[in-house]
């Protein structure tokens, strides 16, 4: 029965000054994290373009940095940081986490991975676990999205391990949008492509630094045109697509290209 005294010897005896030091480290880390989580998004939302994205993306990284520094400062206060002590402590913690808090710990670890690998950052437009929206917060355990319907969706980082993450802009302020047009086959396809390109070039939302492409695909019921272009700001994506759609339809009508809905597959 020597285990109990050995485990107790792991910890330093905490006198009043040690407790105070510990409280200061934890308190400072807590305050710093709260401050950066509020201040940086507040500031970023007053900026536009690249500055906004880079500032938002720095929030989880900065928080991880603060946490690491806090742990590095706090651990030597609580235990004697020898190899033997660390192995004993981590073994005990691993057992507890493995049995009781597996998913929670998995999400926390995925959160650390997410901070480094950055499959999503605040400001990115992602599809995660079937939800599409703008990442507004990357926490320790979860990531929060705001969908186009203004719903706030929280997804645990755990999903990173076994599901795909579709990221529309991947940390940059450029996001491709596409507007679809279904057209009756009897029309001048060359003219239709030209005019759809002009529709994109004359949209007030267009980002001129990125290319405009009109893709055509022939189906058995008609022709599909897809304008691929980029708005000035990813947050304009739905207004941009609406603008392209409305003006694209007008333009196609002017050249006599009638719309045609895709034919549904017939049931056997």
């Amino acid at each position, binding site marked *: 029965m020597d285990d109990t005294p050995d485990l107790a010897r792991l910890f330093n005896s905490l006198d009043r000054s040690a407790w105070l030091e510990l409280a200061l480290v934890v308190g400072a880390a807590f305050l710093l994290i709260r401050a950066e989580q509020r201040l940086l998004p507040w500031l970023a939302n007053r900026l*536009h*373009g690249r500055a906004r994205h880079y500032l938002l993306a720095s929030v989880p990284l900065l928080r991880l940095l603060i946490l690491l520094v806090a742990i590095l400062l706090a651990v030597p206060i609580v235990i004697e940081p020898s190899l033997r002590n660390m192995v004993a402590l981590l073994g005990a913690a691993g057992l507890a986490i493995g049995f009781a808090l597996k998913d929670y710990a998995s999400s926390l670890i995925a959160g650390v991975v997410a901070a480094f690998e950055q499959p999503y950052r605040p400001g990115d437009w992602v599809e995660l676990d079937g939800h599409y929206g703008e990442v507004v917060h990357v926490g320790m355990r979860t990531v929060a999205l705001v969908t186009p319907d203004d719903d706030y969706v929280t997804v645990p980082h755990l999903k990173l391990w076994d599901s795909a993450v579709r990221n529309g802009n991947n940390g940059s302020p450029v996001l491709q949008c596409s507007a679809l047009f279904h057209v009756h086959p009897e029309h001048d396809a060359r003219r239709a492509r030209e005019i759809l390109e002009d529709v994109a070039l004359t949209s007030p939302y267009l980002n001129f630094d990125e290319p405009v492409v009109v893709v055509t695909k022939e189906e058995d019921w008609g022709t599909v045109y897809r304008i691929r272009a980029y708005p000035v700001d990813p947050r304009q994506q739905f207004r941009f697509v609406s603008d392209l759609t409305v003006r694209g339809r007008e333009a196609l009508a002017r050249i006599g290209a009638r719309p045609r809905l895709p034919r549904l597959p017939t049931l056997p």
Partner: protein
Amino acid sequence: MSTDTHPRTHAPPADAPAQPATASPRACSPWKIVPIADYALPTDSQPALLRRRWRSFARLLRGDGEDSTQAHAEAELRALPRVRLENLVPPLDWAPAAAALDEALDGGYDEAHDEAPAGARAAHGPGVHVLVCPPACEHASVLAHWAKAHDARTIDPPDAKRILDEDVRWLDELVDAADGRPWVLPRLERCFLRHASGLALLRGVLELAFSGRLGPGLIGCDSWAFAYVQRIWPLPEATLLTLQAFDGEALAAHFVRPHLDGAARRVDFRIASSGKPLLRGPEGEQADARAADTGDAHSPELRQLAAHVRGNPGLAWHYWRRRLRSAPEPRGETGASAGKDDPGRTRRQLATGEDVVWIADNVEAPALPAESGEDDALLFHALLLHAGLPASLLARLLPLPMARIRSKLLRLEALGLIEAAPPAGAQAEPCWQVAALAYPTVREFLRSRSYLTDAF
């Protein structure tokens, strides 16, 4: 409407001081037309900026100021009366810019106009050049002067209906009207609309011009429209010219020195906050006066103004007019007897022949409200890309309802950010444009939001 309209093109009044560009040799003229690649923005030098800030900080600490007895609080100063302002800052005369354009082209048009061998003409291309100028620098006026001097044919832009109807007969008319003389298309920005049907005539006219079917000619284009046109129909770089930016020295040569060198009535321009002369020599006030006369003086204020307006002389003209002030009437001098011939001058100034004009430190430029958002950005951008638009066309080009556009226009006008130019020609409604004093703010607003901006 503001009393400060855009600088107009006309001959200076008889009593106005001679413009330095016409009075001095061409080499000394601040008006220079350069290839677009040689355009250089004026900068306010960093060490000078730091030194100036340190000096004002030190003065603040000391609690005194050199020449403080002569300095005037800006609130006490009065705006100059209109007549006096017109005398001191007459409307910009764009004829020297046209002369500089001629020099830049080196008489190529007269030669091209002569019976040059077809092979030689082909080797030099179709002889078409594009003059690109930022807002408030009136490229159309420059080209009008040039056209007059060269008996060139002026091509009027199509109206909005023809543009939107893609009426290509306009292009045929241009070809039919070609008579061998050089031609001038002064406002390319009026040849297109940012609409799916609004680009055909632009592409058509550029194709005609650069294929040589119209013969040698000149195209004028606003810098914002040019930024857009480059994405639609990239123009050959060798043909692009622009008005070189004015630095502080050029602004001094244009706005200040005509009132010093040999002027019938010498004007003493002084900084309101410090009481110092505007143009300063290396030492002392006497040295300042001598240096100002000999052209050796410098002015940090004018250099700063040049940097603020990005070297745009048209904008500088607006700012300069707003900064000029006269001293308040000393007690006992008010009355009908003071300054009968010149309402801005006090009796004491008239008696001594002394004429002091104070330069206010800052011009209160219109500010954007904090809630300015995407709709404002779209509106400003459309106005700048087309160098002004009527409300009905804005409604066709923007994805905003007419009622919202009208309410926004009136609100922005009330804030001084845009202004309505009176209807011209067959136009039935006013043309809205970004106000000159608001232009730097609006440009920065659009740039910070990653909208397509000009390079000037």
